[in-house]
Structures are given as structure tokens and as C-alpha cells.
């Protein structure tokens, strides 16, 4: 099993490539464990992985410049590159950048949609649901609680989450502890709770053609 850094490192720093393999996946740090799991399950040993800091999830304006820099930096060392990001709040700018750079990327608005399956997610049309993935459930404090100032000012909770009704935990793996944790997080936010097992959803479908 490939060793990955701690979640905190994937959140704040990301992951450097090993320069082994002919295909480089440039991904969000929040997807690192899932991509490695798929790589090992499918024997995709020709795929190398580098990740941008997962916390860019909270700063989509940083994604496009970082992707551009990564593609330019690593381009000469690989035959092919693939960007494992969906739109992720960039408002089409990442798609435009990938077209300029002549690299492909994952379809869809964000990882919640591609884990759930793009068609499924769109059909649900759930506008009052707040989503977590395995990674976000583990890193909830770093992505939600602290940046929103809720640690010091829980009175802001209603302003942030007052219009939400439900926390939907999209589970990539069966993990009872993480399920219990997500339930606690839903309680903390004052939201109803639903767990949906998605597995790797359209992430697996997106990577398969590179296999």
C-alpha cells in the first residue's frame, strides 16, 4: 500500500510526485487516498500522483493558477497528464485553463457530484443539503469549523447554516467510526443526518480511460 502523508499535510501542503510512471494525475489533496486506492485496486502502476493543498476547496481562486503551474512544472516528465478536479467553484475557469493547457479534467461541478454520480446528483436537486466526503468528515474542523470562526463564535452558526436542512455524508468506504463522526458533526451543525454510500462513483469512471 502506498504511504500517504497525514490528512493535515494533504490539506495544507498537498503531495509531491514520485516521478515514477508515465501518466501524472494532478489532484486535490482531498482525493489522494481515494485515487491511491483505485490505483492499487486496478494495478494502475503507470500513474503517478501529485496533489495541491486540499484547503484550496475553500479558496477556489487559487486552484487555476496552481494547476497551471503544476502542469508547466511537470509536463516534460510525463507522457500524459490528467487534472483530477471538477469545476470546484472556479466558474468554468479551470475548464478554460485545461483547454489552453491541452489536458483533460473530471467532468461536473465538484467532488460531491462525481462521487454521487453526476446524473444522480443533478437529479436529486438538493439545495438545502450540506455535503461531506470521507476526507471532509475527517478534516471538518480545518475546512468548516475553524475557517468560519465557529470555534470562537458558535453564535454565527445560524447565519451560516440556518438555510440548510440536512448534512449528507457521502461515504467512499465502509467506516463505522467515520459514520459516527459525521452524525456528531450533523448534530453540531443542528442538521438532520443522512449517510449515503457512494464508493468512488464517477471518480473511478473518470480515471479508467487512463488505465
Amino acid at each position, binding site marked *: 500500500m502506498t504511504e500517504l502523508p497525514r490528512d493535515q499535510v494533504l490539506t495544507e501542503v498537498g503531495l509531491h510526485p514520485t516521478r515514477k510512471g508515465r501518466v501524472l494525475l494532478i489532484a486535490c489533496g482531498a482525493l489522494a487516498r481515494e485515487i491511491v486506492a483505485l490505483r492499487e485496486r486496478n494495478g494502475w502502476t503507470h500513474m503517478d500522483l501529485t496533489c495541491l493543498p486540499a484547503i484550496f476547496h475553500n479558496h477556489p481562486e487559487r486552484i487555476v493558477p496552481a494547476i497551471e503551474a503544476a502542469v508547466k512544472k511537470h509536463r516534460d516528465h510525463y507522457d500524459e497528464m490528467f487534472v483530477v478536479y471538477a469545476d470546484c467553484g*472556479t*466558474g468554468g475557469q479551470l475548464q478554460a485553463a485545461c483547454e489552453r493547457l491541452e489536458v483533460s479534467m473530471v467532468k461536473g461541478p465538484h467532488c460531491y457530484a462525481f462521487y454521487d454520480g453526476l446524473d444522480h446528483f443533478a437529479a436529486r436537486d438538493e*439545495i438545502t443539503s450540506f455535503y461531506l466526503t470521507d476526507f471532509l468528515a475527517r478534516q471538518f474542523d480545518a475546512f468548516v469549523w475553524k475557517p468560519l470562526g465557529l470555534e470562537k463564535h458558535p453564535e454565527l452558526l445560524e*447565519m451560516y447554516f440556518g438555510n440548510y436542512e440536512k448534512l449528507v455524508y457521502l461515504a467512499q468506504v465502509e467506516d463505522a467510526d467515520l459514520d459516527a463522526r459525521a452524525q456528531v458533526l450533523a448534530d453540531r451543525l443542528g442538521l438532520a443526518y443522512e449517510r449515503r454510500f457512494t464508493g468512488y462513483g464517477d471518480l473511478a469512471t473518470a480515471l479508467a480511460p487512463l488505465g
Partner: protein
Amino acid sequence: MADEDDIILADLDDEELVKQMFDDLYDGLKEEIEEGVNILLGRNWMPYRVLTEALVGGMKIVGDDFRDGILFVPEVLLAANAMKGGMAILKPLLAETGAPRMGKMVIGTVKGDIHDIGKNLVGMMMEGAGFEVVDLGINNAVEKYMDALVEEDADILGMSALLTTTMPYMKVVIDTMIETGVRDDYIILVGGAPLNEEFGKAIGADAYCRDAAVAVETAKQFMARKHNELAAG
């Protein structure tokens, strides 16, 4: 700090009190702001003067520091909450005391989107600047905007979105206004984290507003232009 805790607001002269209220707004101290507002009213300040000099003046500093990356969303929300406390006292008094009316705005978050923090800040700052604000809330379909603009005889339409998946709906609203021949009857301002000036232009809005302070200034400029055009016409 202990020294600050010991400040008795009622002991401060007007200038010191307004300065202290700026600090209290910055620190999001709602009760202190409410107390300060009541003290100034007790000293026969007109409600509009309290609003503009003490509250809007203080929020301008908060807005500037947010723009410059010194303050972040949680601090701005705490400051806004404090201002809201002061506004609640002043609002009923403003109408009674003939405060200037700058214009009327219908504002709402677009269909499919439930995020309202930015919209609420804009609404509050617009009210602070003397605009009448009709807040349609969240998840608004085009019909709701169109009906409200007519019913309220509004001057300005404000649309907000936080999601890249929902912001294109603003174009649906503007296109419908064009089709029905009412587009030029209103000033259309748009805002929200994923938007930018280019997007605002592309969908046919009059302006993209980066934050609440910009929204207020932009609305004022467009209203002045509208008045000038009417005067010239």
C-alpha cells in the same frame, strides 16, 4: 482588556463615543452598539445622523479591512450583527424623522441557491445608506423577481449567488426582463463570491459589486445618473 471593560459609554463626549462605537462595531459588540445608539439619541442626535456617522462610518472601516484581507468573514458577520442591533433601534425612527430616501431595491438570492450572508450584508448596508430594501430571501425564481419589481415600484434589482452552478440563473432573469421590455427600467446589480466583472458584463447586468460597500457606492452613482437623466429629459 481591563481598561476597555471599564469604559463607561455615557461618560464619553460625542466624538469619543462615536470613536468607541467604531471600535465596538469592529469587535462585534452588539450590546455596546445598542447602548451607544441610545445614548446618542438621548443627546438629541437625529436617527439618520447616528446611522451614518456612528454605524455606517464604523462599518466602512470593517469593510475596508475585509477588502484588504485584515478581517475575515466571521469578524465581518459579528460586526454586521452588532450593526443590526443598532439598526433595529433606528429603523422605526428613521421613517418618522424624514431621513433622505435614496431609492428602492429589490434583492434576493437566485433560484437553486440558499446562501444569503452576502445578500444580507448588502441589504443592511443599503438600508444604512438610505435605500429602502425589499428582501426576497433565497431561492428566487424569475417570476418572483419580476413581480416584486413591479409591485414595489423598485429602482434597483440586486441578485446574489454563491455557487458557480446557480450564478448563470442571473442571466435567465435579465433575459426575461429584456424579452418583456422592462430591462431598462431598472438598475441591475449582481454579486457573490464566484462572480466577477466580466461575468456581470456578459450577462447584461449594469454592474458587478465586489462587496457591500461597493454595492452602496454603485447604487448611489446609478441613482444620481438616473435623476440627472430625468432632470435633463
